[in-house]
């Protein structure tokens, strides 16, 4: 499979006459986009707004972040199985509005969190303070049940990304990234002496607001499955996960999965990258045993010498992470885990909900209870009331000057367990 991600650098974002990209400036026709999104009969109202890096703007509560793109060659524009017709992904050419993002906000339940600060202290903690964000705030028609509500918001975000991405169809890219890999057999013939590495990407698969989708299939329903890394980079995996703001994998992070990109960079040099295994994180213990056994078996079947396992969420998925680790290490497959930790506000508590001596190589992407102090914003996009939820819960979290203390777990992507951001933990 060969996929070209053709990056068009976006340097500014504005509303205007024609949805287009000129000299790196992305212009969006507000009315056209709203009208397009309102074609969905379940959408009552759409508000659009812009947040640029450095502006004193806070976005809350964020549901998903999506990269706007258009496929100019090869099958499957958009998100097949979800927002567009089914197609095989992973091959062809995609024009990427690199540096722009669609950010959806809207509360399905009252306790939702997920903040992006575009400036100052808060900006350091989220990767999405560096993107030019088109914020899509959706109000659905009355009387939808929570499932329909969630689906509506999810689809509208994806459609907005497709609509905006279309603006890049005829624009010459600034940079072309090529991702090419043949069958495992071919690659092993090419690199017979390189260690073979699999990537196990775990997905929260537990029900409402706790789901992920692969070609539109809810990951709850699958056995662990082998997927070509290009398919994920091309939009095969999307997020339906609206909790775990700090460590959920947004659709944008699937499209730009940092572990996949890093393994690709070393493919043919230090390692032979075999592929991605998507593993659901279920709620029942029997289900967990089944998926963990199956994941380890897949790694063995494809002949992995090493594996990287990334978690999504905190709590019961810690058990899956460590069970997979145990099984892989016992099969002689050297494993590196990526997880965040919850070592309490003072950093003095036991970091994971579960432990195993086999987990000898772990990358920690931050303490979700680490407290950050966010100054008041000039402008809040989304629901300003959600800030109280964000800060609430403990004494002294809202300052007299309007600043708020919140834990990293409320900040989108701060402790990304696919290692998308650069937080870590050191022992002092």
């Amino acid at each position: 499979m060969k996929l070209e991600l053709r990056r068009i650098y976006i340097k500014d974002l504005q509303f205007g006459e024609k949805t287009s990209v000129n000299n790196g400036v992305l212009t969006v026709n507000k009315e056209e986009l709203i009208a397009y999104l309102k074609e969905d009969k379940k959408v009552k109202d759409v508000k659009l707004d812009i947040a640029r890096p450095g502006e004193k703007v806070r976005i809350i509560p964020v549901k998903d972040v999506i990269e706007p793109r258009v496929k100019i060659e090869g099958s499957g524009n958009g998100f097949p199985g979800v927002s567009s017709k089914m197609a095989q992904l992973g091959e062809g050419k995609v024009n990427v509005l690199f540096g722009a993002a669609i950010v959806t906000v809207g509360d399905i339940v009252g306790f939702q969190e997920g903040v992006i600060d575009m400036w100052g202290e808060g900006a350091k903690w989220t990767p999405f303070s560096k993107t030019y964000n088109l914020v899509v705030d959706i109000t659905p028609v009355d009387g939808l049940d929570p499932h329909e509500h969630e689906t509506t918001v999810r689809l509208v975000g994806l459609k907005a990304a497709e609509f905006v991405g279309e603006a890049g169809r005829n624009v010459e890219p600034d940079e072309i990234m090529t991702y090419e890999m043949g069958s495992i057999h071919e690659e092993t013939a090419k690199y017979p002496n390189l260690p073979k590495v699999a990537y196990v990407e775990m997905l929260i698969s537990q029900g409402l607001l706790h789901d992920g989708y692969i070609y539109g299939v809810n990951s709850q329903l699958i056995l662990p499955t082998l997927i070509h890394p290009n398919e994920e980079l091309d939009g095969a995996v999307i997020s339906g996960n609206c909790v775990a703001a700090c460590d959920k994998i947004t659709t944008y992070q699937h499209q730009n999965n940092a572990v996949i990109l890093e393994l690709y960079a070393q493919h043919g040099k230090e390692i032979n990258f075999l592929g991605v295994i998507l593993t659901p994180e279920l709620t029942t213990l029997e289900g967990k045993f089944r998926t963990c056994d199956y994941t380890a078996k897949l790694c063995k079947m494809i002949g992995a010498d090493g594996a990287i396992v990334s978690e999504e969420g905190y709590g019961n998925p810690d058990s899956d992470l460590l069970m997979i680790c145990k099984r892989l290490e016992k099969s002689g497959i050297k494993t590196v885990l990526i997880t965040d930790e919850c070592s309490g506000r003072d950093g003095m508590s036991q970091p994971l909900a579960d432990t195993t001596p086999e987990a000898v190589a772990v990358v920690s992407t931050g303490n979700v209870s680490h407290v950050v102090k966010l100054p008041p914003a000039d402008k809040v996009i989304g629901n300003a009331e959600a800030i109280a939820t964000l800060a609430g819960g403990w004494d002294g979290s809202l300052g007299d000057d309007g600043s708020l203390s919140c834990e990293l777990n409320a900040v989108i992507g701060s402790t990304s367990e696919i290692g998308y951001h650069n937080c870590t933990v050191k022992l002092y």
Partner: protein
Amino acid sequence: MSDKYKVLYYVNQFFGQIGGEEKAGMEPVFKNEKIGPAVGFESFLKGNGEVIGTIICGDNYFNEHKNEALSFIMKTVKEVKPDIVVTGPAFNAGRYGMACGVIAKTIVEELDIPAVTGMYIENPGVDTCKDKVIVVSTPDSAAGMRKALPVMAAITDKLMKGEELGLPEEEGYIPQGKRLTVFSDKRGSQRAVEMLIARLKGEGFKTELPMPEFDKVEPAPPIKDLSKATIALVTSGGIVPKGNPDRIQSASAQKWGKYDITALDKLEADYCTIHGGYDPVYANEKPDRIVPLDILRQYEKEGIIGKVSQYFYTTTGTGTSVGNSIKFGKEIGAELKADGVDGVILTST
């Protein structure tokens, strides 16, 4: 008056140049001069700070009369108003380490004055204070004095200047156990792939989240027939014959003892505890509460167990180093095995 910051120093009888073990029972005294390690320590402050006095206290006195010793020390600290307190270094000396740790931590907690000490990593005093006090990692004996003092002085100087301390391994102190979130120059995915490549190549790598280490002991097989079994009593609760004939330490034990109980049905007033870590009133009232000989004899008579072993074994657990505990366990275990003991009741306090 100079603008140098003021350091109050604490040492034991030995480093205070009063005497050795024979002076370990001395009560605390304050001298408004620098004594022993305080002299060297001050020279490393490069003129930024000065030691305004030294408190000296016997190791045994401190561990056996903690409240009295602490109240004298706290009173002194309040009077001389230092900017920072330095204790030790205690190296691997258990009783001295306990004193250095407890004093430093109490000063931090009650008076909000920072404190620095120095100890060998295995000194039981480390765990009494490391979360609140900066404990410089020192070699295990006083031969390491010249290594320890400059590091303790450098950290003291940094704290007094209001500078943030760097990573423990860079600064030379024992980690306080705080897991702090910081930014790395590489994102997580890159660190993970580099770690995996290092593993695959058999090169060294360092996990960012060490799993807790548990010292797992394989349990012995169950006793098949309790009515034929010989049962021994072992305690870390410090029960000894009155007068403590073997001079077992009340804390940071260096030895254990064994006492013949063949002739006894229970432990009475000629036994007591020398343990320095709990209120001894109830144990002294009825030593069987710690070493349950009375019940065991009753079981022996009723035929529930075969018999009670000839000796009971005892030491104090408080502040005793892991190294010594392992050593005691092996020695006592070997004796019990040689005596044909089938089961042991091990009591702690």
